[in-house]
């Protein structure tokens, strides 16, 4: 984008361009970037597929190929790697389940083995989850495990009470949550903790007014949201902050029009895709979270996204899971 274009505010969401952008990602194999992101190819498929589905274009990726690819990332122990031949990890196991639920193809994999793998990641003493056998602990992993098992309807496989206790140890004096007990509040960690608590019916443990205020404090004068005080705004926080606010039933505390403008301005009108902020390079991660943000704000032309699972809402309904949040969409903006 040239600097004159940067200041020009696109007035609409260019869905066709974004669909083409996501479709093009898999054909860029002579870019170094493609090879260096090999370890997170599976997450890339999830980000792209969910974005396409929200834009009513889930068929833009071949279902059979997607499912075949996901299956090829599963290991004998039940876990999935970020790509074929990469070690199993809880994050990618979660992404695999999300993709399979979108494609309604859970029967393509051994679900019991997935449950076994995810349950084995819990430290039964502390309730925390490790990402893999190497022991890194993070509330991101708590969320991945809980969301994943909930989507498989197998929360019985873990100690939910202990898992909840660990998450609550990560609650901070400002109402937010961090990655480990004592770690600074961060919007992405807050999404993980609030989402996990919503799934296990423990939202009453959140100080919703205090946390809601912290979250809406993330909005800056230009309309964008940051993830921590005094940090730069970034389109991905349109998801992390808004999803948590939606779950807490306080999404209207954000100035909706200003945020929509900010996200729309981060679109690249030449290549398609959405960037972290206006004028930067686009990527599929920010494209998804720009779209999910717009969906939570009731933007027309997009399917509704579920703020707890980060899946199109109809998928969560098809799985048969209850709505575990207080959000009001679109029309509920009063």
């Amino acid at each position, binding site marked *: 984008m040239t600097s004159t274009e940067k200041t020009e505010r696109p007035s609409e969401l260019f869905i066709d361009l974004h669909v083409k952008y996501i479709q093009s990602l898999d054909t860029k194999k002579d870019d170094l970037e493609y090879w260096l992101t*090999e370890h997170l190819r599976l997450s890339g498929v999830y980000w792209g597929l969910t974005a396409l589905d929200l834009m009513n274009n889930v068929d833009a990726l071949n279902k059979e190929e997607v499912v075949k690819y996901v299956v090829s990332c599963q290991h004998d122990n039940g876990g999935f790697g970020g790509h074929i031949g990469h070690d199993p990890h809880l994050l990618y196991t979660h992404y695999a389940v999300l993709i399979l639920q979108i494609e309604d193809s859970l029967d393509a994999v051994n679900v019991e083995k997935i449950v076994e793998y995810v349950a084995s990641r819990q430290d039964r003493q502390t309730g925390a989850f490790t990402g893999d056998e190497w022991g890194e602990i993070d509330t991101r992993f708590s969320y991945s495990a809980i969301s994943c098992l909930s989507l498989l309807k197998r929360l019985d496989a873990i100690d939910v009470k202990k898992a909840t206790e660990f998450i609550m140890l990560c609650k901070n004096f400002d109402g937010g949550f961090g990655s480990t007990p004592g770690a600074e509040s961060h919007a992405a960690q807050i999404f993980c903790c609030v989402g996990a608590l919503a799934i296990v019916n423990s939202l009453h443990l959140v100080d919703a007014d205090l946390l809601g205020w912290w979250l809406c404090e993330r909005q800056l004068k230009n309309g964008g949201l940051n993830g921590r005080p005094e940090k730069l705004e970034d389109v991905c926080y349109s998801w992390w902050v808004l999803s948590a606010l939606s779950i807490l039933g306080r999404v209207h505390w954000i100035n909706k029009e200003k945020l929509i403008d900010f996200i729309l301005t981060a679109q690249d009108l030449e290549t398609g895709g959405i960037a972290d902020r206006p004028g930067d390079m686009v990527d599929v991660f920010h494209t998804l979270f720009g779209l999910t943000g717009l969906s939570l704000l009731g933007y027309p032309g997009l399917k509704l996204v579920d703020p707890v699972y980060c899946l199109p809402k109809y998928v969560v309904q098809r799985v048969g899971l209850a709505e575990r949040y207080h959000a009001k969409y679109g029309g509920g903006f009063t």
Partner: protein
Amino acid sequence: MSFENYDWSDVVPIEQDDGPDPLAQIAYDPEYSKAMGYFRALAQKNEHSERALTLTEKIIEHNPAHYTIWHYRQQILFSLNKDLYEELDFIRNQVEQNPKNYQLWHHRQVIVEKLKDCSLESSFTEEVLNDDSKNYHAWTYRQWVIRTFNLWDNELSFVEKLLEKDIRNNSAWNQRYFAIFYNPTKPSEEFLEQEVQYGITKIKLAPNNISPWNYVKGVIAKSKLKIDVLEELCKTLYQQGIISPHALGCLVDIYEDRAKCGSINEKELGIQTCILLAEQHDTIRQKYWNYRKHVLASIA
């Protein structure tokens, strides 16, 4: 020694299996692609050797987020009984280039746990925080070191140094709270009172910055003090013509507390302050202040 100097004649590189996609693949960087071919072959037979170790180094230099490589490297390091202090140097160099890489920080934790020696860690994290005082990984790692090796004593003075440099550093304020309240030695009431005074002094330097406000409120919640202790500060700022939404918001908290105890006057003051915030001083959060006004108005 570069990985290319080792003898690889017995290894058949395994090419990238890119799944069912039939498109031809051309890797941009032939060296990376070659190294990955050898890695797949060695990993398959789980070879722990010097050449495998050198190979992991090459791949990490290209792509430090490749988490499978780190696991493989750890296994090799431990089974060959390598000098782990050399590994700490290697990590330091890598962190300089990739300070926000999850794998690197966790790798350091694994190595330090194995060494049972934290003598280099405080200065290491300090160095990283000097470059980026809000690096989440560095802070979380530093907390792990403090907790694991019981290094609570000097943390407050470290935080103090950072806050003097940048009073708006939310990470440093969080660390201050950590150093006091996660410390196994519990703070005295007197200490907490001093801490509130400290926070007030800092607020006066940057009344529009949210971090010390949140911090002071957090300390008050842990002490026997009440939020009224900030009333004078809020009013003085206002009288001096310094309009801080945080100060006004704090007054709303104070008025709401008193309204709940029956003060009709303070209930009205609270409502007026909310209106001021919603319509003049924090318009972007108008809906939030309207909500607070509504809460106040419904106090019987």
